[in-house]
C-alpha cells in the first residue's frame, strides 16, 4: 500500500515537473510534421541529408523581428549549399503571424505550431531559440536570443555544418 502511494505521488511529480526533454547537443533531433505557408507540410524527415536551421519565433518577440533579415540572407547564401531554414511560428492565432510576416517577409520556410507541440519537445529556452541540425540529423548547436553580436558566431556555425555535410 505504502509503495503504491509513493509511486503514485512520484508519478504525479514527474508528470507535473515535465521539463526533462530539453535538447542535448549531439543527440538526434526529434522529428516533426507541421503545416507550413505552402501546400505541403514541413517534415523534418524529408530534409535528411540537408543542414536544417530550426528557429522558434513569435510575432510578439522583438528580437525575432531582427533575426528575419539575417535568416533571409543566410538562406540565400547557404541554401544552394544544402541549408534549409525553418521558422517555427508559435503564435496562438495565425493572423498575428500573418501580420508580422506582412511587415517582415520571410524568404524561408515558415511552419505553424499554434498548439506548441513541437516547442514542448524542443523546449526553446527563450524567444527566439534556434537549433542547428546537421545533415546527419543530429543537433549541432542551440542558440537562445538574437543580438547583433551573435550574427558572426551563428554564421560560422552554419558554415561549418554545411562544410561538414559536403565532406560526406
Amino acid at each position, binding site marked *: 500500500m505504502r509503495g503504491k502511494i509513493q509511486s503514485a505521488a512520484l508519478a*504525479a511529480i514527474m508528470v*507535473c515537473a515535465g521539463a526533462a526533454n530539453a535538447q542535448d547537443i549531439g543527440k538526434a533531433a526529434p522529428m516533426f510534421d507541421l503545416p507550413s505557408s505552402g501546400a505541403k507540410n514541413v517534415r523534418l524527415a524529408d530534409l535528411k541529408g540537408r543542414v536544417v536551421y530550426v528557429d*522558434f519565433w513569435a510575432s*510578439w518577440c522583438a528580437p525575432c523581428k531582427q533575426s528575419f533579415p539575417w535568416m533571409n540572407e543566410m538562406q540565400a547564401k547557404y541554401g544552394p549549399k544544402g541549408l534549409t531554414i525553418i521558422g517555427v511560428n*508559435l*503564435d496562438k492565432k495565425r493572423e498575428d503571424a500573418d501580420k508580422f510576416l506582412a511587415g517582415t517577409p520571410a524568404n524561408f520556410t515558415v511552419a505553424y505550431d499554434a498548439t506548441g507541440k513541437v516547442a514542448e519537445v524542443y523546449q526553446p*529556452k527563450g524567444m527566439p531559440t534556434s537549433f542547428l541540425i546537421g545533415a546527419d540529423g543530429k543537433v549541432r548547436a542551440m542558440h537562445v536570443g538574437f543580438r547583433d553580436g551573435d550574427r558572426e558566431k551563428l554564421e560560422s556555425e552554419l558554415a561549418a555544418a554545411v562544410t561538414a555535410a559536403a565532406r560526406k
Partner: protein
Amino acid sequence: MTGRWIVAAAAALLVCGCSTVQPWQKGNLAKPEMAFDPDVLEARFADHTYFSKEAASGGAGVGGGGCGCN
C-alpha cells in the same frame, strides 16, 4: 489509510499548482497593456520631473549632477 490517500492526493494537487509559463507561451505577457508603463517616453519624463521636485537624483536610470539644474 484513507487519510494517507488524502494527504498524497493533496500533495500531488499542490505540486501541480507549480506550473511555469514556458518561453513560447508569453504572448499575452508581451502585450503592451501588460507593461508597468504603457508609454516609455512619458514614464521617463514623469520620473525626471519627480526627482527634480524631490531634490534627489538618480535611481531612475537618468544621470544627474546634483546641481539642481536637471
